[in-house]
């Protein structure tokens, strides 16, 4: 028996590394790193994947220094409520600091995934130049870049180091004096220096729901002829036209292409000729799915889709009308994932389509499916795991849709494997929620959005406390919950007490008093992210539970009852929290405002990097 931690030396480092490689979860690797110095050293040198949930929680240089051999990094920036315009556009989340640090310290980086960050074209160019073996670039809900930046990415994908468009050009003037002739030959030597790597192996370019400025129409043509390694291309978020013939060439020369998600702009005929070139696709996102009826186009579409022998995932289908949807019935059986949330087709056609998809595991659809449609889904799609129903008319201009709590109840009864729900509707009852809770105790994600704030149970006129309480009490593995409707402090008492696995909670227009917030913060052992808007929660609950905030990733509160004084106290008490007060109306600096000043928006997050240096004028770190 070896004394102390000498047993760690009983095996060479490589053995421990191999053992650690079986630990997928970061939490496990973190635990390993705390055992002894040797393990700390071995673990940090062998960690290949890093996930940074809040880009300001740690300094980029520190992260890069600690884990020098990272091959895959995922980083998130803005708070979730930025998706709904609640966060000022200049709040932060810029990617430069991270990309620069990574370019410096992780030259072997292969995968980069950024979410809700501001990525400039310069960043993209830096990415294009810095990583020799780069394979995957995924940008989700980002902004700040343009198609010119994408062109830089594309241009750097090559397989031989002869010609570079962004590399050095060394002009060598050679004067040749040969017999009888005085000749001056200008020889341009295009050097790609060893310091300019290239995206030789780009496999995946995933652009999901980004705001991209369209200033380079032909960016796709920057992919060189020699580039053939593409496996996944998602350009659904691009607004502008993409050159179809160039895209066709690209697709034809990439035999491994499995995922292709196009953008809205491409007309249906062009889409068809494009898709014909890639019958091996597993995941297709179509472009605009409406056009005037042409029998020829219909049959071409039909035969193209019939050719997809491996298609599992279908999305796009922008503005689909009843005309062309029947052409693709042939793929329904094989689909496991269907995203129709941009399709404005009405219930009968929608129902016909979806009920053919017997193997569906994930369904995203508009509320145009109505209760009848969901009842049909409950009967046909027995393997359904995830359902999202989006509002076709969130601002209530059109006549109301017949989608109510009945649809969700039917799904909960018929789909035994259902674990994830996002549901927008206009009415709900406690009874329905109770039924859902009893039917589906295996729910892990339950996000209900009753569109009108403060809507009570429409039958009993009671608050929906009982219903949501039933959900948290029955669904023991619930990790994510979004509340809506009329709710008092009582629901928070249940959540605090029962939601032991809850990691993310979204609250809006709910609660009566500070007690509500106190219940959450003093319970919910595993809470990581809490976002609250328009609730009467204030200082006391926040200060009484200050230490809880350091166990969480972040807390967002807007339009609540928190005062500046409480923020100041909190910041003093908890040095490892950044307490950011966001106020877009103020001209004068925060220091001059009194303690009882009401805080409009508050974002608190734990960090080891201290206050950030890039706060815009509307943000103060207290």
């Amino acid at each position, binding site marked *: 028996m070896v004394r102390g931690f000498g047993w760690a030396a009983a095996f060479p480092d490589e053995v421990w590394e191999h053992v650690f490689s079986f630990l997928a979860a970061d939490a496990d690797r973190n635990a390993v790193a705390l055992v002894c110095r040797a393990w700390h050293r071995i673990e940090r040198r062998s960690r290949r994947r890093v996930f940074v949930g809040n880009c300001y929680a740690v300094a980029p240089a520190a992260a890069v220094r600690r884990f020098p051999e990272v091959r895959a990094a995922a980083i998130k920036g803005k708070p979730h*409520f930025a*998706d*709904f*315009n*609640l966060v000022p*556009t200049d709040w932060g989340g810029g990617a430069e600091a991270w990309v620069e640090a990574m370019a410096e310290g992780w030259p072997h980086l292969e995968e980069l995934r950024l979410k809700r960050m501001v990525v400039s074209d310069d960043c993209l160019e830096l990415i294009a130049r810095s990583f020799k073996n780069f394979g995957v670039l995924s940008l989700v*809900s980002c*902004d700040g870049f343009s198609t010119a930046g994408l062109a830089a990415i594309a241009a750097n994908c090559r397989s031989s180091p002869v010609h570079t468009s962004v590399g050095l050009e060394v002009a060598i003037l050679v004067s040749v004096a040969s017999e009888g002739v005085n000749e001056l030959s200008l020889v341009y030597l295009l050097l790609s220096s060893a310091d300019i790597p290239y995206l030789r192996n780009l496999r995946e370019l995933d652009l999901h*729901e980004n*705001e991209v*400025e369209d200033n380079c129409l032909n960016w796709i043509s920057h992919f060189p002829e020699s580039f053939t390694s593409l496996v996944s291309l998602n350009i659904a*978020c691009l607004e502008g036209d993409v050159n179809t013939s160039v895209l066709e060439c690209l697709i034809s020369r990439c035999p491994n292409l499995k995922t292709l998600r196009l953008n*809205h702009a491409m007309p249906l005929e062009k889409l068809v000729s494009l898709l014909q070139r890639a019958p091996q696709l597993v995941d297709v996102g179509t472009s605009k799915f409406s056009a005037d009826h042409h029998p020829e186009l219909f049959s071409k579409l039909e035969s193209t889709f019939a050719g997809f022998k491996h298609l599992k995932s279908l999305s796009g289908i*922008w*503005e689909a009308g009843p005309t062309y949807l029947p052409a693709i019935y042939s793929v329904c059986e094989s689909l496991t994932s269907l995203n129709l*949330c*941009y399709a*404005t087709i009405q219930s009968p056609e929608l129902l016909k389509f979806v009920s053919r998809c017997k193997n569906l595991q994930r369904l995203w659809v508009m509320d145009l499916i109505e209760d009848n449609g969901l009842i049909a889904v409950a009967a046909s799609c027995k393997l359904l795991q995830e359902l999202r129903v*989006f*509002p076709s*008319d*969130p*601002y*209530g*201009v059109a006549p109301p849709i017949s989608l109510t709590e009945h649809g969700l109840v039917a799904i909960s009864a018929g789909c035994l494997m259902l674990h994830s729900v996002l549901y*927008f509707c206009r009415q709900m009852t406690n009874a329905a929620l109770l039924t859902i809770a009893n039917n589906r105790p295996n729910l892990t994600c339950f996000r209900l*959005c009753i*569109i*009108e*704030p*403060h809507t009570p149970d429409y039958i009993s006129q009671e608050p929906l406390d009982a219903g949501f309480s039933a959900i948290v009490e029955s669904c023991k593995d619930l990790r994510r919950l*979004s509340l809506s409707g009329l709710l008092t402090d009582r629901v928070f008492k249940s959540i605090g007490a029962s939601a032991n696995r809850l990691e993310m909670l*979204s609250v*809006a227009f709910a609660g009566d008093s500070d007690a509500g917030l106190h219940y959450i913060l003093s319970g919910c052992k595993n809470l990581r992210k809490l976002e609250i*808007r*328009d*609730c*009467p929660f204030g200082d006391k609950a926040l200060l009484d539970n200050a230490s809880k905030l350091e166990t969480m990733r972040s807390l967002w509160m*807007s*339009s*609540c*009852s928190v005062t500046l004084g409480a923020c100041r106290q909190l910041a003093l008490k908890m040095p490892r929290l950044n307490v950011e007060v966001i106020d*877009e*109306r*103020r*001209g004068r600096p925060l220091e001059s405002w009194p303690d009882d*000043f*009401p805080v*409009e928006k508050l974002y608190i997050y734990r960090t080891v990097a201290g206050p950030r240096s890039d706060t815009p004028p509307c943000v103060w770190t207290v």
Partner: protein
Amino acid sequence: MELELGLAPPGSDRTPELGVHGEKRANLCRKRGVDEMLGKATLPLFIQKDNDEDGNGNGNGRQSKHLQELNFGSRVLVGWPPVKMWRRKSDDCGRRRANCVKVNMEGVAIGRKVDLCLHDSYQGLFLTLSQMFPKKQHDGEESDAAYYKVTYEDEDGDWMLVGDVPWEAFIRSVRRLKILN
């Protein structure tokens, strides 16, 4: 990139409306003053407008009566329902996209921008305009709507008086606004 400076009389808080993406800055088109805000227990984040005389000016009869009880004067809430910007980018309802149009007042050098998507009636629009271009001496007149003569340029380039056509038709065709003294 368009730069619109917001000048306002002293006492009200306005910040310049800078923005490349009109839709993202939409919620800044109207700010509440400090006085309005202090003294309230909760601070709902919404665009306030009066909605008591209702129905008549509107093309639709959408109501949220219970919101009024809680002192929410408006039907339009920023960021609610929580639907991503991306959901709104569909051609069939251009109304959901932020629809910022320029507003100039005769004799005033600096123009403003107003997001029509945040309004659903002429009354609301006039209220916003009256707050953007407040009259220096208000002689106790209640209805600002009566005070201003607002014209708009439609898609054909013609200048028409605001208020003649139904609201829905108006927002589809309006290109910019001009307030006459």
